[in-house]
């Protein structure tokens, strides 16, 4: 399973890199879709169907909206001149990557084996969630009962985003 996840993660990285460098914006958007749908397969392999359903639906809707927006534009990325002092940023980026990987390796060595839970809280949820909430789907039990505040926050974030979009995209009100 780890081999499959590694291959899919590699594909996602290639898709993300292609999305940055594509001249046509439509192919860049579709390359972004590779990242999203690869994540769906990763979630399914890691046995998280709830997250996979949410991710596949949201990814599809986002892709539709972004394709509609790109088809309305000129579809071409504007040509940017290469920065003459660009080598400094490259050197900085490589240094940063090396330092990050070093410390990430140190941190990962002290963790448990991949897939084993490190939280004591998880065992309590797994054992008692069905009795406490009466819900057969443990994810819903945790999301709406034990962690109800988080869900309320997510819903409020969505409402705030809609209010912001309605405020910005208002031509008649501005006149």
């Amino acid at each position, binding site marked *: 399973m780890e081999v499959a996840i590694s291959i899919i993660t590699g594909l996602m990285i290639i898709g993300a890199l292609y999305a940055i460098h594509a001249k046509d914006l439509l192919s860049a958007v579709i390359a972004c879709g590779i990242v999203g749908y690869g994540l769906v397969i990763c979630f399914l392999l890691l046995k998280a169907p709830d997250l996979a359903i949410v991710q596949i639906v949201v990814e599809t809707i986002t892709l*539709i*909206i972004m394709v509609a927006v790109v088809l309305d534009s000129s579809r071409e990325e504007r040509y940017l001149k290469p920065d003459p002092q660009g080598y400094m940023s490259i050197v900085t980026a490589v240094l940063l990557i090396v330092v990050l990987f070093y410390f990430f390796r140190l941190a990962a060595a002290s963790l448990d084996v991949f897939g084993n839970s490190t939280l004591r809280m998880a065992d309590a949820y797994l054992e008692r969630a069905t009795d406490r909430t009466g819900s057969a789907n443990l994810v819903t039990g945790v999301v709406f*009962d034990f962690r109800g505040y988080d*869900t309320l926050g997510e819903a409020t974030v969505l409402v705030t985003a*809609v209010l912001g979009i309605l405020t910005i995209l208002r031509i008649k009100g501005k006149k």
Partner: protein
Amino acid sequence: MTVIVKKTTQLIAGMVFLYGIYVIIHGHLTPGGGFAGGVVMAGSFILLILAFGSDFMHLTKEESGSTLYENLAILVVVFLSVSGLLYGARIFFLNWLPKGTAGELVSAGMLPLYNIFVGIEVASSILTIFLALVIFKEETLE
């Protein structure tokens, strides 16, 4: 769009809507829930608008309606979470309805209610965002 796209949309849009309702109502039994089902429900409307154009069923006029449903649904969720306080507890999100047996459709107390209203909220939010973009484009063209 062509006739093929329109006919397929006519056949599929209703089923997509029903599937969204199924995912929401069975959220406490099977994978899914309010967020996923709400986005599926919004997807059926987006499918109709994309296939039949923005003036289909005067859907673009419904922006104020979907905003109203969205705000009402989040208000109901807040009231449901506060309703435990009236029952004598000191915490939000008290599951004070009877639990029933796990695995049946009517069980788990308040969780199906949260799922339904969060589903309405998510569906109308996504639809409002899409309608706002469509209306913005139409107003810019004028």
